[in-house]
């Protein structure tokens, strides 16, 4: 069955968790024991309605404060599809967790409170979804019940985001739906309160989307995770290169080049477990052998010889900063791209980018939740594609060697 991955986005209290809880409730995906727990807790809190955010806000601190702190992964299915929903926090302090949820999703539901319209966090989340190239954006104008389901409120928000998308040069599919997460209008069932709205409900929209791997079809890249040497008599000389295949398929007999050594060879066998295949589709975790005995280790990349990536020792990228310690010139990080980790030194911060797409400004550091253009000097040659060409070889994380924290995410332009 198709698996569709969706993340929520939007400012704090715009109703993301409530919406997801509502979807679960209206699709009858909440089991009896979970529903009972929600009923019990809602009552204890003195609410006269069911607080559906309790279906996803699983941490004590979240339930106490009524906010989401970290991503919850929620699973449900319809007759047509399986869904994985990443319910992310709206609070600016937890933007790193929102990025975590959005990074693996094909679609994003950006919620906007119909009363407040587009605010700073809406811009930031729209920006991040654009940076990540999340394909399908659904703008859910929420809390329509609090504005008497007024069409003009909906249209105003639609116009503002449409203008924003234009400014951003967005090529994403953007859909607008007026909803009430709390009451269920246009979530699973069509609302009678919005006769002026002729589009689909949120769930109908998801059901019609074609589920796709976020790592799209481009060029085949096999980052080698580990070399498999069985040390068994029957596989005495076996040397397998194991990794997950991204971007395209590989076939037995393909002429390949191994990077960084640039050694050429041919694919001898493709294994998945104990079976041999002539072709492997992208997304598969395979184990290949090559015709020649060449020296390959973790972090190397196998590519088709006709589709070589670019290379550099001076890298420029858009960086989304997620650490409370600022990014400054001269600081060293581990840059992890696929299975490849190399030392990188910040050589320049070229600009910080306004998340409402109003422009860029010079900067000497990147603070938490800021996005900027950064140049790095690399200890070794990096083989890469742009993020637009290939998400795997075009993205990386920066790890602070002092704290081991994942401090930033980079997107090669």
């Amino acid at each position, binding site marked *: 069955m198709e*698996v569709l991955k969706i993340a929520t986005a939007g400012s704090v209290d715009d109703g993301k968790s409530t919406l997801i809880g509502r979807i679960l409730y209206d699709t009858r995906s909440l*089991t*009896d*024991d*979970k529903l009972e*727990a929600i009923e019990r*807790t809602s009552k204890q809190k003195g609410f006269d309605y069911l607080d559906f955010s309790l279906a996803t806000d*699983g*941490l*004590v*601190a979240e339930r106490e404060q009524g906010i989401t702190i*970290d*991503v*919850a*992964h*929620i*699973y449900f299915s319809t007759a047509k599809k399986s869904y994985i929903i990443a319910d992310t926090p709206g609070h600016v302090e937890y933007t*790193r*967790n929102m990025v*975590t949820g959005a990074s*693996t999703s094909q679609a994003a539901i950006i919620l906007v409170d119909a009363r407040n319209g587009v605010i700073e966090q809406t811009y930031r989340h729209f920006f991040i979804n654009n940076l990540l190239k999340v394909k399908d954006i659904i703008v859910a104008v929420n809390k329509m019940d609090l504005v008497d389901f007024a069409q003009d409120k909906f249209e105003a928000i639609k116009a503002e985001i449409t203008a924003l998308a234009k400014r951003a040069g967005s090529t994403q599919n953007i859909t607008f739906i007026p909803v009430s997460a709390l009451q269920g209008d246009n979530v699973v069932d069509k609302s009678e309160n919005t006769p002026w709205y002729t589009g689909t409900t949120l769930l109908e929209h998801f059901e019609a989307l074609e589920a796709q*791997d*976020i790592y799209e079809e481009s060029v085949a890249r096999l980052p080698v*995770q*580990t070399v*498999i*040497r*069985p*040390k*068994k008599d029957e*596989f005495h000389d*076996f040397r397998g290169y*194991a990794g997950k295949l991204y971007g395209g398929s590989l076939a037995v007999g393909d002429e390949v080049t191994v990077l960084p050594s640039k050694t050429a060879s041919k694919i001898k066998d*493709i294994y998945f*477990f*104990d079976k*041999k295949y*002539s*072709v*492997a*589709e*992208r*997304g*598969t*975790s395979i*184990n290949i052998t090559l015709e020649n005995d060449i020296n390959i280790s*973790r972090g190397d990349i196998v590519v088709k010889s006709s589709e070589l990536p670019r290379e550099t020792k001076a890298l420029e990228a858009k960086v989304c900063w*997620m650490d409370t310690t600022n990014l400054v010139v001269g600081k060293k990080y*581990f840059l*992890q791209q*696929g*299975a490849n980790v190399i030392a990188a030194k910040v050589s320049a911060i070229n600009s910080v980018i306004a998340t409402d797409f109003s422009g860029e400004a010079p900067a000497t550091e990147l603070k938490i939740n800021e996005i900027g253009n950064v140049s790095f000097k690399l200890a070794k040659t990096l083989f890469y594609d742009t993020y637009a060409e290939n998400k*795997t070889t075009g*993205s990386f*994380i920066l*790890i602070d060697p002092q704290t*081991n*924290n*994942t401090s930033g*995410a980079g997107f090669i332009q």
Partner: protein
Amino acid sequence: MNELRVNTLESEAIYILREVAAQFEKPVLLFSGGKDSITLVRLAQKAFWPAKIPFPFLHVDTGHNFPETIEFRDRLAKELGIDLIVRNVQDNIDAGKVVEETGKYASRNMLQTETLLDAIEEFGFDACIGGARRDEEKARAKERIFSVRSDFGEWDEKNQRPELFDLLNGKIELGQNVRCFPISNWTELDVWSYIERENIEIPSIYFAHKRKVFLRDGMIWSAEDDVVYRAEDEEVQEMMVRFRTVGDMSCTAAVLSDAVSISKVVQEIRDSSISERGARIDDKRSEAAMEKRKQQGYF
């Protein structure tokens, strides 16, 4: 032409297992003999074939396990030629390090943590691979695939590392350790469907069988095992039941079932309106039972 088609969840799990093997020096697979850890074992076989699974198994034995599970555990490890390390909660109780709970709901679930942390220290494990899934429980739904724990095993749930795309950051300081969850994104149904597709053998208690049981709090408890506390007035009867999870017997209730084959189990789960952990009394102690256990070092 024979083309390998993608199975997203399987590929993801294999990818994660390979990352664990490559990024850590001393990983261990936590093996309980339950369906999730059995599934992990099959995935690990696939990830490293034709080489042997490159890490040992560790079982933290509460002493309250179903005998069928223990038997199964020993047989599988032997068949695969994998080192199986067993550490007993009973030893810590005997040594006076932990105190056994008493009463109607007494269980050794909490005590497992101490034994697990001791084993991690004894062997110097830097990564523990577990079969936890995010759909099991609301605190689990919040956890990363690589979940960093302090040297006291603590989970800092409000301060988890970002985890983007497939990129897993396993860098840690000495003494810290990472809990790694390759089947995070699988649901209970995904696991059962996989067991069916792969024709994986599992312990018999997962299938419907006749058992002497008694009822308490609307749940069905085994009356065949003395570790399950039963009051005098709790009447024993015979029913067709199976277990959905095979944890500590004292806190794992059975469900009524006539599913005697894997395909029937799959069908039953599809139709079920109760979640898997609905039959686990350890999660019912309080709203935050799982989160609290995790903060202290539990899985």
